[in-house]
């Protein structure tokens, strides 16, 4: 993941080896490490799975190699 999430929730750590069936489970697992992350992620994070932005957090992660959590930026 990239800032601001590592600094705010994970003491600066931005990489984790985790297994999860879907993004909801992954965010829950991260929330167990960095409390409060899940609530913030729901509003402010965008997530890419193997380089492709993923809208549906319930979709299976089976076979995915890399999940990237980045700030959500919309526009004007």
């Amino acid at each position, binding site marked *: 993941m990239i*800032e601001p999430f590592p600094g705010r929730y994970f*003491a600066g750590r931005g990489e984790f080896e985790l297994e999860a069936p879907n993004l909801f489970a992954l965010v829950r697992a991260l929330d167990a490490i960095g409390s409060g992350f899940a609530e913030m992620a729901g509003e402010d994070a965008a997530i890419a799975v193997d380089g492709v932005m993923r809208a549906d957090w319930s979709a299976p992660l089976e076979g995915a190699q890399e999940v990237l959590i980045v700030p959500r930026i919309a*526009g004007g």
Partner: protein
Amino acid sequence: MNAPDPMSKYRVVGTRPVRPDGIDKVTGKAIYGPDFVAAGMIHGAILRSPHAHARIRSIDTSRAEALPGVKAVVTSADFPGQSAKIIAAGETSSSLRDIAATCLAHGKVLYVGHAAAAVAATTKAIAEAAAKLIVVDYEVLPHVIEVEDALAEGAPILHEHMITKGLDPAPDSPSNAANCLVMTRGDADAAMAGAAVIVSGHYRTVPVHQGYIEPHACVASWNADGQGQLWVSSQGHFDIRNQTASVLHIPSSDLRTYPLEIGGGFGGKTGIYLEPVAMLLSKKAGRPVRLAMSREDVFCGSGPAPGIVVDLTIGADADGTLKAIKAEFWYQVGAFCGSAVNSGMATLLGTYRIANAHLCGWDVVSNFPGTKAYRAPGAPQMAFALESCLDDLARKLDMDPLDLRLRNAVRPGDPGPHHVPHGAIGFVECLEAAKAHPHWTAPLGANQARGVAGAFWMNYGGPSTVSVALSGDGSVQVTTGSPDIGGSRASMAIMAAEVLQVPYERVRVAIADTASIGYSMVTGGSRVTFATGKAVVEAARKVEETLVTRAASLFGVAATDVEWRNGAAHCLTGESAGEHLTIGAIAAKAGQFSGPVSAEVSVNPLDYLPGFAVHICDTEVDPETGNVSIIRYTTVQDVGTAIHPDYVEGQMQGGAVQGIGWALNEAYVFDGNGRMENPGFLDYRMPVASDLPMIDTVMIEVPNPAHPYGVKGVGEAPIVPPLAAVANAVSRATGLPMRTLPLSPDRIWATIQAAK
């Protein structure tokens, strides 16, 4: 150079039909925010702070309440208590406490124009007179406007609870720095040390307003049963409803919200200012209440775009290959935190291949209205720094500035600013088209020079809900929840007509209220033609599928033996082979099937692609006065597929014009008391038609493969390059660096004199 005629790949996509809402808008029939009237409606007025920073000791409303005709008075004491909970607020998220305090000051006023109390009365004149009778006892506090002053030792603190986020260890005392964000890529120090050429600069822009013509306005009605209605002009009535309901602690479904026409937003109409206040006034008065801002209210009471201060250094090889970038920057965000630090970083990292970066961004509050989004929020300011610095690099290397950008431009597959790879992007195509454009090599006269700048903007997708329904005669009704700001009624109709293969005029588009269709995110982020358009296409395809299935039953064949073509179902086999049924003939049979033909679709697409642009600007500088004239301007942009090219070109031209205004004249000018000195269009100098040449547009259509017709967002990228394109031209014309905006005549004249 006009865009080439659309390719014949599509029937309707790429054509330029008349806009369906045009007649209403040019004849004055369209109902905008300040036009709407509800039965029994009364009028509201807001009392605004005369101080830039003051503690509210007390508010005495008794004289106002005693004035004949006054029906209600509201202060922040009438607001439910607010938490610091973060909620979705248009395109971003924000603290509920800050959202509420933006509507009515709580405890302190934080800028001149901050709403302190409100009145509703039988006439507007009575409401305004009553507002003046409200006595607010202020303890005036010192104020700050500039970033440096806000961060200085001993500076007055706006928010006593604000501890800078992002610092380790966390500070133990409050400050005006809301947030610090550091992003690194590679080893910037080492790469910079190995660079053959280093350029750097200190850049500054000031807050500017979006300048939408229509002021904020709403009508609110709170019924005795607790349910309410809101009529609003906004970029997203669903989000206005949600924010208002959150502030008032009522269920969203109890607040039916109706969209009115919108006279410009550009990001500034994604949040709330008036709505909860009008609701509370209505609740007390028992009548619908209209609140509308004046132009001065808009400037002093709604959010402009932030200013910025940037220290930027770029290192490159002798051939111009970028090696490293280092930046520290401070967004000047007004009274409430939540600026565009992330998008500023994306601007620095999204446009060119730069392997090594160290970026540090700050979000700094001070005593003017909390800033809001403005078309590619945060990017034009940062691109001004980046693209100006690149121009310095090109000069230092004696290199064509377009060649420098071509050497470093991001290509498909390159990592984006957040490491997600760029998809089918067309930045290189834009740069090549700019270089091939006759403008690039046209001769220049005395005191004239040419500037160029590139641009990247991420764009967005997000949730939208759409329904497509057929009438019994086969005409098509598309209903969305996306307010039409830039011509989306036309683009939605075009896409539905394309799918159903019917004439554009057979499709009508309506924007429904919050009780009549599911949620759609705001019209912003250049998302509607992409995301809502995807939903339209999907719903229209479902309708087509139903039509084919029903036609098959009528023909007595399998659905696979029916082809949809030219707005009709054609039978391919059996006794009816060669026959066809029109869309109207099938729709008329609804009573013999399971019901009318319709489909509703909700989507949340995130497979949007960014937009890229290149602008070329010729300026002429009058050395006697410092006045700058724009004498030629060309915009080149990767637009994906242009659904309605007129509207795409309009976005490109509009963005360029707003950016030119930002570069040359627009600025919040404050006096020593923090009061804006130019809160009107006479003194806040936006460009008008007579100031500018024709803005030439070159559309580069690199389709987005994730959209059925290849759509990319187009509304924001065009405002990113003009600040630097203009500044680079003026720098070349004068031979002097132009690192502070606006480039008003007095500033340029003083710069020229200082250099003599």
